[in-house]
C-alpha cells in the first residue's frame, strides 16, 4: 500500500462522490460480487461439497501434491531470488542489465508457452535433454519434477521484485562496517543483510506461495493431468466443472480462493508496519 506522504486533504466538489461511487461499483461487479458467489455456491448444500472433496482420495492427493509442489517451488525461488538480488544490487558484471530485464520475462510469458518450452527441452520422447535424462532414470515431463519446474518458472520474479528495492534502499554501509570489523561473508549476510531485507523476503515468499498454489496453464501442459498422480488442485477445478460436478469444482475453487485472499490480506496487514 502506498502511504500518502502528506496529510490527505479530501478532494472538493461533487466529483469526489461520482468517482468514489464509480470505482466502488466497478470493483463490486468485477471482483467482489463474483468472488462472493463462489463462496456461496461452494456452500450451497451446506458442507456437503467441502465434505465431498475431503473424502475423495484423488482430490486429497491433488491438494497434497499442490501444497508440496508450491512449497518446493517457494524454497527454490526464495534461495535463487535472494541470491540473484544480492548479485544484481551489490555487484557489477557484464550483461547485468540484460539479466535484470530477462528475469522479468516469466511474468509476461503465457503459461501455455512456459509449458511448451519445458516440453521441448525436457520431453521424454524428443526433447533436447529429455531422452538423455530419462535413460538416466529421471523423468521430468508428466511427472512431479516437471510440475515443480513449471511452477518455479511462473513465480520466479516475485521474490526478486520485492527484495531488490529493499536492498537498494538499505545501502551497504552497515555491511561494509561489519566486514571491516572482521565478520565473514556468511556472518555479514545472516546478521546484517538478512534482518534488513526480512520483510521484503516475507512479501516475496507470500506472493510466490499464492502464485505457486494457483498455477494452472503451465502445469496442465507438463503434468499429463493423471488422476491421483499428477493432477493438481487447479486441474481438479477444471475437470470437475467440465464433468458436471460443479459442487466439487466450486468447493475446490473456494479453498484455493481462500488461500489466495488470505495471502493478500497477510501482506496488506504486515506491510504498513514496515516504513517503506
Amino acid at each position, binding site marked *: *500500500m*502506498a502511504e500518502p*506522504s502528506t496529510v490527505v486533504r*479530501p*478532494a472538493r466538489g461533487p466529483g469526489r462522490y461520482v*468517482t*468514489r461511487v464509480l*470505482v*466502488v461499483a466497478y*470493483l463490486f461487479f*468485477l*471482483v467482489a460480487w463474483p468472488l462472493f*458467489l*463462489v463462496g456461496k455456491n461452494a456452500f450451497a448444500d451446506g458442507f456437503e461439497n467441502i465434505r465431498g472433496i475431503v473424502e475423495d482420495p484423488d482430490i486429497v492427493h491433488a491438494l497434497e501434491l499442490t501444497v508440496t509442489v508450491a512449497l518446493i517451488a517457494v524454497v527454490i525461488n526464495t534461495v535463487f531470488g535472494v541470491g540473484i538480488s544480492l548479485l544484481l544490487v*551489490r555487484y*557489477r558484471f557484464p550483461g547485468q542489465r540484460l539479466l*535484470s530485464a*530477462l528475469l*522479468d*520475462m516469466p*511474468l*509476461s*510469458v*503465457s*503459461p*501455455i*508457452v*512456459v509449458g*511448451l518450452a519445458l*516440453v*521441448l*527441452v525436457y520431453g521424454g520422447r524428443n526433447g533436447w535433454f529429455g531422452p538423455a535424462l530419462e535413460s538416466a532414470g529421471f523423468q521430468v515431463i508428466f511427472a512431479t519434477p516437471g510440475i515443480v*519446474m513449471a511452477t518455479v*518458472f511462473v513465480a*520466479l520474479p516475485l521474490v526478486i521484485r*520485492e527484495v531488490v*528495492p529493499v536492498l537498494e534502499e538499505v*545501502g551497504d554501509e552497515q555491511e*561494509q562496517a561489519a566486514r571491516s570489523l572482521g565478520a565473514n561473508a556468511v556472518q555479514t549476510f545472516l546478521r546484517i543483510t538478512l534482518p534488513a531485507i526480512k520483510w*521484503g523476503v516475507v*512479501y516475496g515468499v507470500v*506472493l510466490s506461495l*499464492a*502464485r505457486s498454489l*494457483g*498455477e*494452472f496453464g503451465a502445469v496442465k*501442459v507438463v503434468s499429463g493431468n493423471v488422476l491421483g498422480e499428477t493432477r493438481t488442485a*487447479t486441474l481438479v*477445478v*477444471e475437470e470437475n466443472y467440465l464433468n458436471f460436478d460443479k459442487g466439487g*469444482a466450486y468447493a475446490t*475453487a473456494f479453498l484455493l480462493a481462500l488461500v*489466495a*485472499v488470505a*495471502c*493478500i490480506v497477510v*501482506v*496488506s496487514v504486515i*506491510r504498513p508496519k514496515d516504513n517503506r
Partner: protein
Amino acid sequence: MTSATLVPDRPAVSRRSGRDGRLTRASGLGLGIAMLWFSLLVLIPLAAVVVTAVDGGWAAFWDAVTTPQTAAAIRLTVGTAFLVTLVNIVMGTLIAWVLVRDQFFGKRALEVLIDVPFALPTIVAGLVLLSLYGPDSPLGVDIANTRVAVFLAFLFVTLPFVVRTVQPVLAELDREVEDAAASLGASRFTTFRRIILPSLAPAIAAGAALSFARGVSEYGSLVLLSGNLPMRTEVTSVRILSSIENDNLPAAAAVATVLLAISFVVIVALDVIQRRVVRRG
C-alpha cells in the same frame, strides 16, 4: 500493496557506496550457479521454442501462424487485450486516484480487492466470473461462450497493473503545484491535464504495457468462461495448447514465438519508459 511486485522499479544503475562491486570468487561462483539454473529453467526452454519454430523454415512458420483459425485467434487476443488496456488506462488511473486522494470507510477492503486478481488462480478467476456472468447468473446476463467473456476475463486478470503502477507515483506528487495552478486560475480539468497527467504518464504507460502483455498471454481464466469456439472465442494460448495436444509441436512453437515476440516488445518498451523516468527523476 504489491506496488513493488508490479512496478518494474529496478533502476539500471543502483545506488552504491565505497566498494567497487567487482565480483569476488564466492560471488562469481554464486552468479555462475544462478545463471546455470536460470538457463536450464528459462533461457534454454524459451530458446527451444524459437528454434523449433524456425526449424522448418520461414515458409512453414508463416503457414503455421496464418492459418485462418490461428490468425483469427491472434487477432481476437491482440484486439481484446488492446481494448482492455484502454479501459484499464482510464479505470486504473481513476481507481488509483480514489485510493490516494479520497478517504472513506472501506478503503482498505478496496485495496485488497485490487490484488485479488493477481493472487487468485486463473482457473478460479474463470469460475468466479462464470458464477456472476454465466448461465446461472443472478443478474440474468449470460455472456459465457461469447467474445464479451474474453473481454471480461482479460479485464479481471489485468485489473491490478495500472492501479499499482500509478498509485505510488500519485501518492508522491507534490500537491503544492496543483494548489499553485488552481490559485492562478486553472480549472480542475486544466490542472489535471497540464499538471497531474504529465507526471503520471510514464507510470500509466508502464502499467498499460504490463496489462497488455498479461492480457495477450492469458489462458486459465478463459477455459471455463469463453468456450474456446474456433474462429469466435478461441484465444492464442488455446490455439497453442490444441497444437500441443495434437502433437504438432512445430506449429505450437510458431504461434508461441509470436506471443514471445509480443512480450519481448513489451519488456523493451518498459525498459525504455523506465530509463526516461530515471533520467528525469
